[in-house]
């Protein structure tokens, strides 16, 4: 062991050191790495020891810069901040006004002061609102972000009050995101980058970060109330329970809605009462179309009810169930249409309406049960390895796939409920029931065949026993043993 440590260990150490040195050298030579000798900003701003307290914000890590999309595209400190990045002497030039150094502060030399939010927005807008500049990086760039921003709740408040708590570009795009003093680490990732705070799966978390919409104290500020309604701070927690969050975060369905799908991103605003259905309709187009053609829509608008959100909720939108339909057991219809004359007597349910709601609920339950029963029978027949011919219309079609038509009919019927008309829903349900009937019949046939096989196999015992008897009789007929 001693011999090993005295001979092999130093050799290993030398080899490891050599490899590490080579790797470091290779890294230094790598293009695009923020260690270029001509960039003097890094010399100071990349030195952790120089920045503490309030000035810590001015410390820029090499690692963060390397992940920054701007740096990766070849932009350097001076491209945004101006100044002379090659000036080695801090007293001479790097921050000199003649070199067009852009300070984001109201008082340029007071580095302890945080940047002015409006200046941040305009600085980003310099390039991102400039189609000619942005075309260098993309053939069809988006350049309306700045314009949209000034129409957003954030932008309007910033313009009106200069509120430093208002979110600006870096609040959402930089990492770690935040607002106020915590802004900016020079680690702005591309939106499609998995580590970007505005990548689809991170958007809600970013909006709700501790210093923004999840901050109870900040959101309780009456100045932030929208149309007299406080903004609230529990949206993120509510959304996490929603069907959208489940789809986005658990199933990885990137098309599922997060904050910006309903509120907009750069022009973020809560949807108006009349536009909720349109916001939902971006994804749920058919439902929105059906609802738009109903008398209910006009009634909702008249009563200032928020469209879809009235029944489905705002942020905590859970999977709709048939229990929502009907006149009892917490069904939503009964909330506005109580039986008889209640507080909302104006909209009391008629006998026909009550009957229709109950009948729809019963029919939906019936089809749901029929699908489940057919599925179980098909699964049982498949597990037993029984042949399952397709429906009479196409015997080669897989019965399990054919059964999906019934599920589609059920989904369609649930969508058609938003038309508030009985016949189309009933037609769709009838279609689904016909499919389940055919499937169930086929599966039943297969299971009966399975039982018939068992009976025939059991019956095969008879000839076997007969042969045994014949053999025994023959043995008895043999001459006796000596």
């Amino acid at each position, binding site marked *: 062991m001693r011999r090993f440590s005295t001979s092999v260990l130093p050799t290993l150490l030398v080899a490891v050191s050599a490899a590490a040195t080579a790797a470091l050298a290779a890294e230094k030579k790598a293009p695009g790495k923020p260690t270029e000798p001509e960039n003097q900003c890094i010399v100071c701003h990349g030195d952790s020891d120089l920045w503490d307290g309030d000035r810590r914000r001015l410390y820029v890590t090499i690692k963060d810069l390397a992940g920054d999309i701007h740096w990766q595209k070849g932009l350097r400190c001076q491209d945004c901040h101006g100044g002379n990045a090659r000036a080695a002497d801090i007293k001479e030039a790097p921050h000199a006004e003649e070199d067009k150094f852009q300070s984001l502060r109201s008082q340029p030399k007071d580095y302890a002061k945080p940047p002015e939010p409006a200046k941040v927005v305009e600085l980003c807008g310099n390039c991102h609102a400039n189609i000619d500049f942005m075309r260098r990086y993309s053939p069809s760039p988006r350049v309306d972000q700045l314009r949209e921003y000034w129409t957003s709740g954030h932008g309007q408040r910033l313009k009106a009050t200069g509120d430093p708590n208002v979110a600006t570009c870096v609040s959402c795009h930089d990492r770690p995101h935040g607002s106020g003093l915590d802004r900016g680490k020079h680690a702005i990732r591309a939106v499609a980058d998995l580590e970007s705070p505005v990548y689809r799966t991170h958007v809600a978390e970013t909006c709700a970060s501790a210093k923004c919409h999840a901050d109870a104290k900040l959101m309780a500020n009456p100045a932030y109330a929208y149309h007299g309604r406080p903004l609230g701070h529990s949206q993120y927690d509510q959304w996490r329970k929603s069907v959208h969050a489940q789809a986005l975060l658990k199933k990885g369905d990137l098309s599922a809605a997060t904050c910006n799908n309903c509120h907009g991103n750069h022009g973020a605003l809560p949807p108006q009462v009349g536009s909720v259905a349109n916001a939902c309709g971006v994804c749920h187009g058919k439902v929105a179309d059906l609802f738009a053609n109903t008398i209910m829509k006009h009634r909702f608008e008249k009563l200032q009810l928020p469209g879809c959100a009235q029944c489905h909720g705002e942020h905590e939108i859970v999977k709709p169930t048939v229990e929502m339909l009907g006149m009892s057991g917490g069904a939503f219809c009964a909330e506005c249409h109580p039986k008889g004359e209640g507080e909302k007597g104006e909209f009391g349910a008629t006998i026909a309406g009550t009957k229709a709601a109950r009948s729809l609920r019963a029919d939906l339950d019936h089809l749901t049960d029929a699908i489940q029963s057919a599925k179980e029978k098909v699964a049982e027949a498949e597990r037993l390895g029984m042949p399952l011919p397709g429906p009479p219309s196409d015997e080669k079609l897989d019965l399990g796939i054919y059964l999906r038509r019934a599920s589609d009919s059920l989904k369609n019927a649930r969508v058609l409920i938003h038309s508030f008309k009985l016949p189309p829903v009933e037609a769709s349900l009838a279609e689904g029931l016909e499919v389940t009937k055919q499937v169930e019949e086929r599966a039943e046939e297969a299971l009966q065949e399975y039982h018939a096989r068992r009976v025939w196999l059991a019956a095969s015992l008879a000839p076997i026993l007969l042969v045994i008897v014949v053999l025994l009789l023959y043995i008895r007929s043999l001459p006796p*043993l000596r």
Partner: protein
Amino acid sequence: MSPASPNEPPGPSGPWARCTAFFFERLGLDDLHALAAKKRVPIHRTALFYFLGGMALFLFAIQVITGTLLSLYYKPSPDQAFESVRAIMTEVDFGWLIRSIHSWSANLLIGVLFLHLLTTYLMRAYRRPREITWITGIVLLVVFFAFGFSGYLLPWNKLAFSATRVGTAIVGAVPLVGEQLLLLARGGDEVTGDTLARFYALHVVILPIAAFAILAVHLFLVQKHGMSIPERVAERRGGEDKVPSMPFVPHFLLRDMVGWYLALGILAVLAALYPWELGVKADPFGSTPEGTKPEWYFLFMFQTLKAVPEEVWGIRNAVFVVLFFAFVGLVVLAVPFLDRGVPRGRTRLVLNVLVAAAVVFFIVMTVWGLLPEVPEVPE
């Protein structure tokens, strides 16, 4: 063709007799006929046990025939294995019956082999000069275990997949060479399509060759040394040659056939009451389904592994169980050499106690393994 010499005996008359004579002369079947006519089987109280060997042979023949038929349609790839078995069961005429009989006869065969082993021990049929017959029999049992293990994966369903994952992991616990054995068995770190290909090759090429070869030696030795007569029977009759016997053909053969038909009847009952199911297609990325168990004849090992604490005398439980059963296997193999042949001696007593304990252990562990698992109630 020259005309028959007047001195030669007259040839057989009639077409059938002439045809038989043709083949007997050319294939030398006269010797075999003489052997069959000469072969006799002893008659005594436990002579019924002699039928177990024939029954095992009959079930093996069923395995070969049904297995060959299944191989005409089976496709050994993860994408097609399950679908091809489903096609066998749903599209091929009587495919479901052939598969069910193949699976059940495999189980029945292992059961008959267990009984054959036990009765051979009880009759002391391993005594000199039948030691090699005993050893070839044990090796055959191991080969049929391997048949069962490799065949279980072939339908590529969830239960089989999980059981193979667990089973091959136990192989990995073999000291020193476990890792290599695991790689050899799986063809990689995990159970994949490579494992399926290996198991198929093992099931339809390697094991059949091994089984036929060892079986040939086993049958030759049985023929060579004749049927073993229990010591006490011979003692009571005053010598082995005094024990009454019956001719193999036709007396024993006809009785053997009764046994075969009985086995066929049992197969029909099992296939009727419990047709072999297709299951659900294996999902290599899915979790292990609840109630994953190996075939019943491996349950005693599986249950032992579950019952043994995680560490025994500083040894990991899987390693301990593998070592334990390897030791038991060696003892079983060495029985002819451990039994000194003294009828009421201490060695035989110890062996009898050990065998009784092993049988009880096997039954208890198997029944325990078959019982449904009760979920633990949190305290």
